[in-house]
């Protein structure tokens, strides 16, 4: 399939010379009005249809994320994987690739991490094995990412479809493992494999829900991503090829090699997330290991305008929505997928406003 499925990179928004103040203010106000409509009125309508007071729902959303250390750390435990994955996706978006296979890459990372942990000979080597499993997870993600990349460069298959296919394949793999070779003693179930002993859990501080390892990795990866994409030759090359692949040869750039590099980086980070899910969150392999973080991180990247500086905030928003909605079923009797509706509306609003500005030029 041809490339050119609509570039995910937004056009650089330059302020037009000679645009007078009233127009700027008017445009700002209309943007706010549209955002209000989309993010408040529409969800409220949906809530009313569901028979619930919008005010109560939004209150519960907010109260679900603030107020206690436990809630904050819950949010952080969702924020970390989202931010990490979204950082990884920046590499592929830079070179104009749609890495929809990120879900599968998370899963493969989790699978590899689990495999390594299962071979841990004794609890004393726990720390070492944890490190190995994190590396293995990254390796699994790299493998899955490169597979999709090769299907594109050698086989000419659009990365969207190969990514989707590999997601399904990864899902099938996990199901087979959980119900087959790695099944729990007794009956196999959707709650996954036998949990790992505490020695193979990433160490926690106090009773937080997230280990500092995850946060440290997050900062390292985010900083590295920002540095690589903005300040190194690699990042510039990715940007150049993403912007004009035809000119690549003139500058001695190999399209294929750089695409594979981007897929490997993206996959590796996603795989790392997968192994963090194993070692830090679930401590076992289960079919829902990726928790939809892959697809959500694509949305996060879209909301952040594919820019590093906005990703932490965007993923925080998404994590809050996710967590805040968990107690909605209990308290108000509505389904927690309300968060997904809000998240989708957020993306559409951003894309819609962007499109309006581009048109108005």
């Amino acid at each position, binding site marked *: *399939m*041809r490339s*050119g*499925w*609509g*570039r*995910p990179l937004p056009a650089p928004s330059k302020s037009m010379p000679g645009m007078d103040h009233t127009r700027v203010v008017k445009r700002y106000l209309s943007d706010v009005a549209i955002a209000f409509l989309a993010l408040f009125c529409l969800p409220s309508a*949906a809530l009313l*249809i*569901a*028979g619930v007071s919008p005010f109560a729902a939004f209150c519960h959303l907010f109260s679900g994320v603030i107020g206690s250390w436990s809630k904050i750390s819950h949010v952080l435990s969702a924020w970390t994987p989202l931010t990490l994955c979204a950082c990884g996706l920046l590499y592929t978006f830079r070179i104009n690739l*749609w890495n*929809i296979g990120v879900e599968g890459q998370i899963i493969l990372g989790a699978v590899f991490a689990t495999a390594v942990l299962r071979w841990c000979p004794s609890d004393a080597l726990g720390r070492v094995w944890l490190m190995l499993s994190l590396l293995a997870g990254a390796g699994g993600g790299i493998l899955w990412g490169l597979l999709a990349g090769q*299907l594109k460069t050698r*086989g*000419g*298959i*659009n990365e*969207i*479809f*190969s990514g*989707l*296919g590999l997601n*399904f*394949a990864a*899902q*099938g793999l996990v*199901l*087979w493992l959980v*119900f*087959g070779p790695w*099944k729990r003693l007794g009956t*196999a179930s959707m709650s996954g494999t036998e949990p790992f002993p505490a020695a193979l859990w990433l160490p926690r501080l106090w009773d937080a829900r997230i280990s500092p390892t995850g946060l440290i990795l997050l900062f390292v990866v985010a900083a590295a991503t920002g540095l690589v994409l903005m300040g190194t030759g690699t990042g510039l090359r990715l940007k150049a090829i993403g912007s004009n692949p035809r000119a690549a040869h003139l500058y001695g750039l190999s399209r294929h090699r750089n695409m594979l590099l981007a897929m490997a980086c993206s996959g590796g980070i996603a795989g790392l997330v997968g192994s963090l899910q194993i070692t830090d969150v679930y401590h076992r392999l289960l079919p829902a290991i990726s928790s939809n973080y892959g*697809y*959500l991180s*694509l*949305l996060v990247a*879209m909301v952040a305008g594919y820019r590093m500086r906005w990703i932490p905030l965007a993923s925080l928003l998404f994590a809050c929505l996710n967590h805040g909605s968990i107690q909605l079923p209990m308290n108000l*009797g*509505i*389904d927690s*997928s*309300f*968060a*997904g*509706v809000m*998240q*989708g*509306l957020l*993306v*559409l609003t951003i*894309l*819609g406003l*962007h*499109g*309006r500005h*581009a*048109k108005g030029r």
Partner: protein
Amino acid sequence: MLEIDFSLLLSSIIAGAAPVLFASLGETITEKAGVLNLSIDGTILLGAMVAFAAAVETDCLLVGFAAAGVVGVLVSGVLSYFSLRLGQSQVAIGFVLTLMCRDLAYFLGNPYCRIPGPQAIPVPIPILKELPFLGVAVFSQTLPVYMSLVLIGFCWWYFYRTQWGLRMRAVGEAPDAAFARGLAPQRLQTVYALAGGFLVGLAGATISLAVKPGWGRPQGAEGTGWIALALVIFGGWHPIRVAAGAFLFSALQVAGIFMQGWFPSVPAQVLNVAPFPLMIFTLLLVNLLQKESFQRWKETQPWAAAILECLTGSPPEGLGKPYRSE
């Protein structure tokens, strides 16, 4: 050896294929006109939920189907507006919509989980139902199933035998050439995206009102949209081949139910994975076949050329690229 009633087997294959037929043929129409609609998985779920809810509230199946169709039109309308008018990426919008519609379906469908509701009943065709094998297999189905079968023929006729279908294909292949010929690419693409969306909505209704009646979380219809997308590619954007793919998929699913009996430990979802490797294989094949060296080999073997012509199909050139009228 188990006693297998082949006519019943065929009957369940045909019934099971109905929603997939609606979705994949609808998407074929949309893509043939040049629009890529990735939101169909979510649309099917939302359509299924709305159809079931509407049918429960009004106790009328027709209202359910109509409501699902409207939902499909609305979702594809959003996609068309954002991509064709606002110039956003069709992939991005489609992707967001698929997630959002799924969540919306679960959210609004909460009160309708696992409650009984109206269901389509088989409507045997008077004389044809007496036929020995086909009578049970083909002519004792529910109305939606009949409609899905008719749709195959209708799509083929529309695409290849009418002037409108010709214009649709022209717009998908080369929007600027179409514009130069006096056609209106943007308008036509919107129309066909909406038409395709309508059919996708019907697919959802067919599931929740006929094939897998009811609503729940999960419903069981999850993944149907992705499979329809795969089938469109597998079928080379040709309605007959896409339909063949849909039947093949349904057969695989039915076979899966049998295999469940033989391998009880393997969950059914593993078989749902099957269409995608097939699709990737087809795409690989298509791309390999276009390589220079193979082209030259093909020229020396006329029989090979004929077979390959049948098996391959290439995407409309304008797929996914919004047309800009200068």
